[in-house]
């Protein structure tokens, strides 16, 4: 391959982790654990998979990405900025008074945001609607939606999955950030999700399991051309990935760093 995207994806993911953590540190607000588990997925999508033009955010043929786990806005805002949708210095306003960078993404504030999220379980139905619009108009764009795993406890996801399976929305890909933690505890101790792959198969999806921090593996599965069915990509991830004291820790769901923790994270994220 002449133009290997992996080094760029890797560099972008590192920058996103550092920059989003700085945003959380400065705002003393945010959801850094879920930012870090999603970072590699977002970097791979925007720098290896999605067909988009930041100069034309409403280009009808663009691929769509829906960030259903809207609480991880630090990862979404950094990737959109890196992708050229808005200047990097906007990131410094994260959650400030009158900022465009609200705690949860708002499509009316920022180019590149397809729909407003924050309450869990909203992204899938909207993504299904986008995919149906493409299906009935014969458009070629693809629709990707990222949910948390705890988020899948919301019934709305399964209502939408049923519609997607029924209508064979083969241009739709659901990615599950399978970090096995939700807000207060593990997913399996709270409300069992496994066997997630079989569940999605039963709903009419083609299912892939992938290491959600392996850029090459993510790139291969996410850029594979559409098949016959909607796809579910279960990305096995680590909440807080990249910072030793944050990994697999529920308290970093919405924990924010003090100065020493921020400094240590910056030392580790290199």
């Amino acid at each position, binding site marked *: 391959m002449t133009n290997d995207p992996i080094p760029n994806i890797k560099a972008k993911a590192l920058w996103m982790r550092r920059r989003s953590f700085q945003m959380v540190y400065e705002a003393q607000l945010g959801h850094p654990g879920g930012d870090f588990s999603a970072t590699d997925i977002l970097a791979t999508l925007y720098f290896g998979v999605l067909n988009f033009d930041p100069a034309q955010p409403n280009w009808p043929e663009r691929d769509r990405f829906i960030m259903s786990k809207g609480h991880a806005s630090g990862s979404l805002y950094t990737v959109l900025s890196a992708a050229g949708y808005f200047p990097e210095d906007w990131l410094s306003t994260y959650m400030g*008074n009158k900022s465009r960078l609200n*705690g949860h993404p708002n499509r009316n504030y920022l180019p590149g945001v397809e729909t407003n999220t924050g309450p869990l379980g909203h992204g899938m139905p909207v993504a299904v609607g986008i995919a149906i619009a493409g299906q009935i108009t014969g458009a070629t764009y693809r629709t990707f939606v990222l949910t948390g795993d705890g*988020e899948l406890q*919301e019934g709305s996801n399964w209502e939408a999955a049923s519609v997607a399976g029924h209508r064979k929305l083969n241009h739709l890909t659901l990615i599950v950030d399978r970090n096995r933690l939700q807000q*207060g505890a593990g997913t399996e101790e709270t409300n069992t999700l496994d066997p997630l792959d079989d569940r999605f198969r039963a709903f009419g999806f083609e299912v892939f399991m992938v290491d959600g921090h392996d850029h090459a593996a993510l790139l291969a599965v996410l850029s594979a051309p559409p098949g016959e069915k909607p796809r579910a990509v279960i990305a096995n991830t680590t909440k807080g990935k990249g910072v030793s004291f944050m990994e697999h820790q529920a308290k970093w769901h919405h924990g924010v760093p003090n100065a020493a923790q921020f400094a240590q994270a910056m030392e580790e994220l290199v």
Partner: protein
Amino acid sequence: MAHAVETAGLYDCRDAWVKTMMALAEVDDRIVTVVNDSIGSSKLGAFQARFPDRTINVGIAEQCMVGVGAGLANGGRIPFVSAASCFLTGRALEQVKADVAYADFNVKLIGQSSGIAYAELGPTHHSIEDFAWLRPLTNLTVICPADAWETAEAVTWAAAHEGPVYIRLSRMPVPLLDIPNRVFRPGKAETVREGQDVAILACGTTVHLAAAAADLLKAVGIAARVLNFSTINPLDEAAIDAAAETGAIVTVEEAGIRGGLGGAVAEYTASNRPVPVERVGFPGFLPTGSLEYLFKEHGLTAEGIAAAARRSMMRAAR
């Protein structure tokens, strides 16, 4: 009388909520909690440790959570369904309407971190529409306590009361209202300041601000009555009739001005006793910002409420 705002410490009403729950559950084993991955934000960690079998965490599934509450009531339990009020009332609105209110089950809905407690997280996480959504459900008692004392009283009353109740709590620290010999009377407004020139009707986190506004007005010779209107449904119509006698009304709430306490008072006075009503609260979806910023921008300060009182009095004089 010393001013509560100046002399008292500040209390997170969730501490009063959980302390009361622990005490009630100790003596009544029918009491259970139902949550949506919200043990931490509901401060129910100690409750879960003490009563693991009586803490039902359904996961992130609010519609299911409220339905489960109705089922637990059918099974003879007294469920306290506790979740961030934005999701409890917004996401599960039809379950609240059909399974709790219309079916008239003995379910207690506890809206946590209501109003704009999650300020910077934005309108999805604000709960400023809940009064408008729930107030029309006639048999659902809606209470928004003003301080830690009233929170404990309301939770205790709700546990003993047979019927659906919504209690709207905040995580914003507020002072104890300085009112001697207080008695909690659901459905009745409580007098915080006496006055005949204008009446300020407030609830929840804004009552102490209304009291401070009355003190500002007093300094310029205006005697403002302040009422703690903690019960929004049923409405204390006699207190509104009496307030209308002053000739000018102000309503104050950490909620939308459409359909909430202000909406209820405007509805009642327009039909029964026309009088100027200035509504202080939020006009709609709010921009990104801190709680302090958003309160100030929308006149939820002593100065802002005092200004609204003057506006109401000026309208009355016209």
